[in-house]
């Protein structure tokens, strides 16, 4: 016997309603082109990785403190803080003068920070010049094989000349040929005359590595002019590395300024700059240790800040760490 009810169900004209339960999906040609994952932005990834690092947090905090200190503290400098005052020479730290006085009777606390402004400013300018010149030259150096040979020789040559000899000769030439030049300009020239070499070598090494990568080989084969390759292909890759170098270079410039002052080819002794103040403190160390220790602490703090940021940046900018 047949189940009349089932047949009735099956032969129910309401079959067509089942179809209405299904909605046809649109056919989108471009669907396959769309990536569902979030787009990868390099700099956003850098930011994310950067923030996670404890080094970066410390670095940013100390950097902020530094900037605030440089801006705010000199604002409060009392009248005559940088005038020599024989009555207060070598005064120990007291309520009036938090860090004491230096060998000329100036207020050490304010001198340090006003000097820090100047030193940082000089360091920035010199580093910028070094980086720009070094990068451009390094790119060309690594890219053109013929230039490579010559530059390697030049590098070997210059790096073997004792740097002290170069500085003294330079100081001498500048003093004789351009006596009108302010000593800050002379210092910048001294710091930049061979500073770019190290950067150039570093950039050259990196350039050599990436010139052989496929995308560059492709560009070269396609006939892109060298300059465009350097600017559009190589430079963006190098940028993070260069930035890291910059952050490490700035404190290096300040330390160089200190050494140059030590050998007498830096800024004049009475200048208000970290290098000069620190140098003055060296001779006074055994008797008036604060004259050396406080400027050294300031310098150490600056190095510390930049180094931390540099460390964190170099880690953050490494794409392999963007996970």
């Amino acid at each position, binding site marked *: 016997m047949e189940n009349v009810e089932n047949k009735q169900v099956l032969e129910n004209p309401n079959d067509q309603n089942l179809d209405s339960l299904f909605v046809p999906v649109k056919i989108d040609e471009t669907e396959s082109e769309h990536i569902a994952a979030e787009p990868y932005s390099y700099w956003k990834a850098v930011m994310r990785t950067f923030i996670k690092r404890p080094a970066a947090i410390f670095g940013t905090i100390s950097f902020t403190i530094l900037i605030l200190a440089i801006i705010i503290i000199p604002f409060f400098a009392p009248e005559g803080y940088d005038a*020599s*005052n*024989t009555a207060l*020479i070598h005064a120990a730290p007291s309520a009036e003068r938090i860090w004491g006085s230096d*060998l*000329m*009777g100036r207020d050490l606390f304010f001198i340090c920070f006003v000097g820090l402004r100047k030193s940082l400013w000089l360091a920035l300018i010199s580093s910028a010049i070094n980086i720009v010149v070094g990068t451009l030259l390094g790119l060309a150096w690594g890219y053109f094989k013929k230039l490579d040979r010559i530059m390697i020789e030049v590098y070997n040559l210059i790096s073997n000349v004792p740097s002290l000899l170069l500085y*003294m*000769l330079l*100081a*001498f030439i500048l*003093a*004789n040929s351009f*006596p*009108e030049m302010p000593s800050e300009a002379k210092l910048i020239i001294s710091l930049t005359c061979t500073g770019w070499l190290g950067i150039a070598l570093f950039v050259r090494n990196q350039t050599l590595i990436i010139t052989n990568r496929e995308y560059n080989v492709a560009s070269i084969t396609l006939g892109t002019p060298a300059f465009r390759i350097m600017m559009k292909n190589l430079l963006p890759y190098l940028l993070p590395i260069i930035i890291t170098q910059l952050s490490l270079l700035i404190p290096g410039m300040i330390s160089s300024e200190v050494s140059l*002052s*030590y*050998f*007498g*080819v830096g800024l*004049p*002794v*009475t200048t208000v700059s970290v290098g000069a103040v620190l*140098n*003055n403190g*060296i*001779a*006074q*160390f*055994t*008797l008036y240790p604060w004259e050396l220790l406080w400027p050294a602490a300031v310098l150490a703090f600056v190095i510390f800040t930049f180094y931390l940021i540099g460390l964190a940046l170099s880690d953050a900018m490494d794409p392999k760490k963007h996970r």
Partner: protein
Amino acid sequence: MKKTLKLLGLGAILAASVVSCGPTNSEVDLTEEPEICQKLGISQKDLEKEILGDYTAKYNVGAAIVDSTRTLERYKAFAEAEYDLIYESAIIVPWLSQSGYSAAVSKTVPYQAGKASYGLTADKYKNVVVTNEAMTKEKRAAVKAAYDSGAQAMPITADSEGFISLANVNANPVVGADGKYTVGGVSFDTKKTLNVSYASDVGKAKYNYLTNTWTYNSQKYTNMVDGLVENDKYGNIVGAIATKYKAVTNADGSQTWTFKLRNDAKWVKNSDGSEYGVVKAGDFVNSIKYVLNALNASGTASIVTGLLKGAEEYNAATLAAIEAGQDANAVDFSGVGAKAVDDFTLELTTKVETPYFLSSLTYSPFLPSSAQYMAEVGTKWGEDENHILVNGAFRQTETTLGSKLVFTKNDKYYDKDHVYIDTLVQKFIDGTAGPDTNRKRYEAGEVDSFTVSAKDKEGWKTYVTGEDGTGTQRDPANPNCNGILSSGGSTYIGYYNFIRQNWKYNDNSLRKTDEERVATAQALRNKNFRKGFLYGLDVLHYLSQYKPGSEAEWLYRSYTNRELTYATDTDGKSKDYGEYVDEVYNRKQGTTGVSLSGIKNAETAGNSDPVFDASKATKYFSDAKKALIDSGTLKESDFPIKVDVIADMEATTRAYEEEMYSKLETASNGVVDIQLNVPASDDENQDWGSISNNYDFSMWSGWGPDYADPQTFLHTMIVGGDMVEQLGF
């Protein structure tokens, strides 16, 4: 001896750079008058006479008196000249004397070594006795008592041939068999090694003692080469290689000094101490010939040409020979007053009667040198310690520059019984060290003596003032510390540049226009203008930078150093030459009891500096301004006159300098504007100060005595004197 040294007690001067502003073209044109002179309308020679003439006239009065019996007259005449130099012609502003008390802790027995206020004796280590422990006050007092009471006068009676003995009647006792040194009833355990520290390595022309004028080097070779005479512990001249002498005045006014030499003084080689020969009279003649030969360009030639007969002529003859292209060595030497009569008899003839001749023989051109050895080593003679011969107490056996020097006793020395040290070790102390480093080294046992620095607060408290603060430099609290009076040494002065030829500035805002340069030159010619400086500079405040708390000890307002030489006054008392100058000062200024020596003045008059008086300065400056305007030389718009001063490179000292000069400016009431020109390096500093004379007024320089007579100082400032180069002439 011209000592343009930087003053003691400065902190480390950091490394100098090679930067030099030395003139690249150093051709000197002798025919043209300097630019300034042309603008002033007066020749260089005439200007020199104008400024220095009065003083020179007064000086000549004193210099003419050469008879040794009329010393008092001579000194009184010199005192008048000196007063004129400083307070009437106002050519210099004296301010510092290097004699004074210092608090020293040492392990050497005091009062045994040779003493002199001039020459090289002070640096000799012969007669220095080292003990195991620091000197205590009781022992020191005992030794001092023995010293004070034990002075024997030098013999003055001639023997049968007319010679006066130079034997040392005050010789020190020899070390006993038990190794102890006994004096004044006190016995000391002796030590054979002495460790001292030194701050500067040998400089150029190192061991060529015949041409060299650097102190750092003379400190070394004075221990290696003995001369005719030396000083005993009382300052008397006693014989070293000379045993007796005779002085005979000749008919033409010259004086012949004959010396008999000992025959056991040997030359040894420095490197190994092997014998080379015997010191003979010819060796002394050889030295003099070398010094006078213009070929050798000796810095000490002026001492000899000023003393010996025929020396100047020989020197000029060698010069002429060189200019003519002939051999200077062939010039006839026979006219010079230096002869070796035989191997052990030396004859020196002075131009005129020179009562102080013996004291000038302690100087280096009168040291012997072996002609044979010179021929052997040629141009290398004197280049280092191994290229000279040694006849003195020590040989320099080890040299590690920048670290240490070792001197070993010379076994073949004729007077080795009086050399109590076997090894002398000099350790280098670096510039980065502070004022307390020497003390720390002493306490660690690395050195055997040190001087307490006023800047070393902890050491000062421990050794000098003591816990209760009652001790002073003269009488320190710590039993191991003793107040030592250093006598002699240099005086430092401020002086002007009357004919300036170089105007170099590191700060362009200080540049002067031609008009301003002429204005300065004209102003400097005015005596009252200079007197304004003399009375307006508060040098005492400036000194407090170096010697805080004891500035008065070092303040000195006269040129010839105190305690250099004495003369017996009409009342029978032996007085220091400085006291005669004080008398003239009091008489002319209408004061009583004022002394130009800071310490004395503090005792008698209450304030140390009798000269500084801002109101007097104001008056002199305004007088000068009025005179200059009235005579039409300058206009009102020329004031304030810009005066360039070489600023101290040391930032600390400069603060004091600035204060001193600003006081002067205020006192001058707008007449003077002092510009402090800071040199960029040590080289530049030296260049500005002594080569290109880049200043209008400077306190850079000083003078040290060559012999025991005021002439050694006063001679420097007469027309054509030794120091007038610094004045621009």
